[in-house]
């Protein structure tokens, strides 16, 4: 009997220890080489544990529940996994398609949506149980074909917005009524949208185009105005370089009225004036930019690059629009994630099997830790930001 009592006591103590911390300084880093995630914390820059068995995690991404306790991990192989980061365990998992590319969590945190390549479309799940709530096939060409879906984000009023790679369309999915999802379609937005973003206020959805120059802009406050083309001329007359890696737009870089985006197939970061949506400048950089991410205060923009320049990071000062620092963390710098107030940034260095933490003021490396082919890094502060 005593033994049983000790058991309960131990269990009780374990529960208390396991839960006696907040999660606001925690995060998850994807180890794509081993189909696992590491759970980390940014106060002491340490690893807290690892969760395995998440499948093919190439291009995996993560969104968080609003209580910042659960990470929803979107794998390449259609796997959607709900991870309890306090207890480092999987609480739900579903293989919801053959091939997927990321997802989003709804404004109220009750729905998780996944964008799929195969079969092309979006599936929406109950965030609590991962039961299917809605299935939205990305049909086009009179329903004959299905498009790969990219750039899925959440938007205010229980909406999800995404773009169709093959069809060149933007769709707005209204999930206010679970039983009757409503879809608004915007056609002919341009060839092959490759990724998209939503501004931090949830107003503008912008899709980058791979198949032609420019970007497609949808003002969600004035949807009847339709999709407008911006930056139509940025690559005109110049030979595009081979694009060894698709740029990402998810790390929306905004500083004041300026937005910074990667140019496709050029060694340039484009600067857009967000009042006029006109080009405000081009910054020559070291290679083809992949992520162009602003420190949370907007003072700096950090840029990483595609092959063969993926060992380098450049830092742009957003006042002078000039490069103030170049770092060489090692081969395969895939992703960057700023701590919520920006004093430190984490970098994944895939080919070195390492994650590094830099001070953003001194640019000195402050910590590093081993990780198996690390890619995306995602901190819980994303839980409270529209579009992340």
């Amino acid at each position, binding site marked *: 009997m005593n033994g049983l009592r000790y058991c309960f006591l131990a269990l009780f103590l374990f529960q208390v220890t396991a839960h006696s911390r907040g999660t606001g300084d925690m995060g998850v880093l994807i180890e794509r080489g081993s189909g696992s995630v590491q759970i980390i914390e940014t106060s002491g820059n340490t690893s807290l544990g690892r969760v395995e068995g998440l499948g093919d995690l*190439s291009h995996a991404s993560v969104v968080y529940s609003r209580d910042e306790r659960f990470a929803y991990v979107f794998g390449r192989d259609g796997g959607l996994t709900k991870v309890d980061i306090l207890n480092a365990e999987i609480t739900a998992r579903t293989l919801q398609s*053959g091939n997927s590319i990321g997802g989003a969590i709804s404004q109220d945190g009750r729905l998780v949506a996944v964008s799929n390549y*195969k079969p092309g479309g979006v599936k929406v799940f109950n965030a609590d149980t991962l039961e299917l709530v809605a299935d939205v096939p990305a049909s086009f060409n009179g329903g004959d074909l299905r498009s790969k879906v990219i750039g899925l984000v959440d938007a205010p009023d229980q909406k999800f917005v995404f773009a169709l790679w093959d069809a060149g369309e933007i769709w707005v999915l209204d999930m206010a009524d679970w039983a009757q999802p409503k879809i608004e379609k915007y056609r002919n937005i341009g060839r092959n949208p490759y990724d998209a973003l939503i501004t931090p206020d949830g107003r503008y959805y912008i899709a980058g185009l791979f198949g032609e120059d420019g970007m497609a802009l949808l003002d969600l406050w004035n949807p009847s105005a339709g999709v407008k083309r911006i930056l139509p001329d940025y690559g005109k007359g110049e030979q595009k370089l*081979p694009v060894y890696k*698709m740029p990402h737009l998810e790390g929306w870089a905004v500083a004041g009225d300026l937005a910074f985006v990667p140019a496709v197939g050029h060694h340039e970061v484009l600067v857009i004036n967000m009042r006029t949506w006109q080009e405000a400048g081009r910054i020559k950089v070291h290679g083809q930019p992949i992520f162009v991410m602003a420190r949370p205060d907007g003072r700096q923009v950090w840029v990483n690059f595609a092959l063969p320049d993926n060992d380098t990071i450049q830092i742009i000062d957003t006042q002078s629009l000039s490069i103030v620092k170049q770092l060489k963390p090692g081969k395969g710098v895939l992703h960057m994630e700023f701590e919520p107030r920006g004093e430190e940034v984490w970098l994944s260095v895939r080919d070195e099997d390492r994650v590094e933490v830099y001070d953003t003021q001194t640019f000195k490396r402050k910590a590093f830790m081993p990780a198996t*082919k690390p890619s995306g890094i995602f901190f819980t502060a994303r839980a409270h930001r529209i579009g992340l």
Partner: protein
Amino acid sequence: MTALIWSALYRIELVFMVSFILSASVYAGGAITAGRQQELRNLLIQDCGSCHGLKMKGGLGPALLPSALRNKPAEMIKATILDGRPGTAMPAWRNLISPTEAQWLASLLLQGETQ
């Protein structure tokens, strides 16, 4: 007579052996150093894998499993690696990968030696 037959057989065997060794050396990468092979394998899984999937089951780009490549000659795969596919997201890798290396990568894909 028997000696002649034996000698003929021996020659045939020799030819077979030489051709076997030659084909094996193409397959094993021939002039590609072990270090470079390691780099290329990593590139194939990690960088090609960004679009084709770490397990080559496809993504933005098509699947590259042996079953998916069944009717594709090695030469065609090699050419696709080197020169890309215009009008798609597949870039020309010629600046980063030599023809011999592309040939070797094609053989890895066809043999399913990408895990």
